[in-house]
């Protein structure tokens, strides 16, 4: 059924359709309407067996999800920025204990100064916590992302938590058409969870997370690294199955848009890539041979797909709505690193755009296109990192 709903409502519906059993969450703008909607489902009796724990902080939200997930339940939460930062410690806990929790992070800029607007630095700062990260371009992808996230997270080759990321307001509060399959079809796609272990086996009791001495800790870290590597295959498999069942294919970790014959491409994540695709069409009408590469999955990082792209283009303009202070945009940093030991050496330039929700428009993409074109023609970077649109 198609419905015009906000990104946050899409997330809430997806959680409901995934038949989550425990939701523990704490209010923060712009996440709150996800939890409000879920509460509404409960109040209206639209969900069965859903326990909602209105915790006293995000740290406890993640802790409660961890307890619930370790007990075998399908657990869900959502947060933003400061809340995600507060959870940081427990994000490691969730992955270390191999719990397939799914969380929606509504990307929001970190304070100070206070900001409630879109910025990817909050989620990217959690890149080393052992969570898979999926960046949604639009509300449909928020919905699809949450459904796929559970299936991928709970896959026996993965057993890791997944973060589904959407933009503050640009998706979270924007109404858009979302197609939601019938519940029976979703149930077929996403059967009940079969946990790796559970705390309810009283005859064979286990202790989870006991002290790992230097002789054993290392191997458990390797297990997570391997599961993350396995996740790449599982993502493609599940993305393909999703496409076959529901008509929207997610078998690629990077969505390539008109990249086949492109001289150079724009690479980025999340909602800004919708605007970029629009701009690519307009630029192509004007004779530019450009494309777009939307990185859907940042963790695990799609090394192989990026390499395939990089060897066929002359340049990559990496658009980062985030920044790692003392270094560069985070996607740029990772993409460049991946290509270092390969024979693909496109010109790469980092454009820092839209921090704290500053609008990033089709016009801006055109300006960047001209800049990239000049760089490629000249064969020389003007500068490696550009704070695009900075008031100078």
């Amino acid at each position, binding site marked *: 059924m198609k419905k*015009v709903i906000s990104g946050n409502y899409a997330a809430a519906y997806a959680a409901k359709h995934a038949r989550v059993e425990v939701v523990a969450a704490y209010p923060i703008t712009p996440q709150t309407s996800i939890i409000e909607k879920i509460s509404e489902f409960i109040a209206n009796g639209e969900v069965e067996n859903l326990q909602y724990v209105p915790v006293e902080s995000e740290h406890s939200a993640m802790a409660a999800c961890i307890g619930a997930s370790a007990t075998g339940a399908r657990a869900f939460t959502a947060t933003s920025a400061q809340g995600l930062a507060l959870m940081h410690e427990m994000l490691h806990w969730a992955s270390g204990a191999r719990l397939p929790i799914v969380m929606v992070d509504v990307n929001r800029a970190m304070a100070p100064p206070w900001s409630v607007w879109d910025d990817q630095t909050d989620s990217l700062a959690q890149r080393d916590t052992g969570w898979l990260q999926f960046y949604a371009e639009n509300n449909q992808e928020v919905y699809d992302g949450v459904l796929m996230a559970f299936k991928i997270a709970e896959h026996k080759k993965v057993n890791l938590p997944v973060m589904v990321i959407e933009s503050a307001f640009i998706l979270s*509060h*924007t109404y858009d*058409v979302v197609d939601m399959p019938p519940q029976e079809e979703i149930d077929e796609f996403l059967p009940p969870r079969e946990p790796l272990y559970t705390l309810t086996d009283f005859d064979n009791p286990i202790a989870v997370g006991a002290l790992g001495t230097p002789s054993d800790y290392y191997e458990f870290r390797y297990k997570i690294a391997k599961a993350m590597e396995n996740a790449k295959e599982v993502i493609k498999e599940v993305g393909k199955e999703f496409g076959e069942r529901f008509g929207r294919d997610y078998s690629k970790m990077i969505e390539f848009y008109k990249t086949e014959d492109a001289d150079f491409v724009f690479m980025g994540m999340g*909602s*800004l890539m919708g*605007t970029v695709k*629009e701009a690519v069409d307009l630029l192509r009408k004007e004779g530019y041979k450009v494309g777009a590469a939307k990185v859907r999955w940042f963790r695990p990082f799609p090394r192989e797909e990026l390499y395939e792209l990089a060897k066929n283009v002359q340049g990559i303009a990496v658009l980062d709505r985030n920044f790692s202070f003392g270094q560069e945009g985070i996607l740029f940093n990772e993409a460049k690193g991946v290509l270092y030991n390969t024979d693909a050496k496109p010109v790469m330039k980092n454009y820092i755009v839209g921090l704290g929700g500053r609008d990033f428009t*089709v016009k801006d993409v055109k300006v960047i296109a001209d800049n990239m074109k000049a760089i490629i023609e000249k064969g020389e970077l003007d500068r490696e990192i550009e704070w695009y649109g900075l008031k100078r």
Partner: protein
Amino acid sequence: MIEIRFHGRGGQGAVTAANILAGAAFTEGKYVQAFPFFGVERRGAPVTAFTRIDEKPIRIKTQIYEPDVVVVLDPSLLQVVDVTAGLKEGGIVIVNTEKSKEEVLELLKKKPKKLAIVDATSIALEVLGLPITNTSILGAVAKATGIVKIESVESAIKDTFSGELGEKNAKAAREAFEKTEIYEI
């Protein structure tokens, strides 16, 4: 693609109006997008909200700078906000006011091609008993722009508000549709 900008005050339902309009266009098979200005405005402060309507999926995720249509829910805003900022050549302005066409034009910085006037506040007070003009003004939008049919607006309103509330709001929209005066400038 048609881009519509709503001007209202916090609490008047400008955001809901943008959403209902999107819902109405959606029932006619269009692709839609509706969003508030991403601010932190509180009740009473001037707010804006936006709707995009297109025949194909809408990928663009930016704010609207050059609207085709401007809808003003609160007449007092005409003195405070430049409601015609960025209005496209040939654009339409729809105002809830008791003022005359001349008086409204006087207050607009940029002259639209078409001006629609309706006293939505009186209609809302009469039908709903409340000065909430977001549903009635949509009747004017349907009439002045022809983007959506009034029937679609009515059904989108009933989808948003259940029961009697939906009926009343749909009635307000229909009434405004009938009473809207349209002037080609």
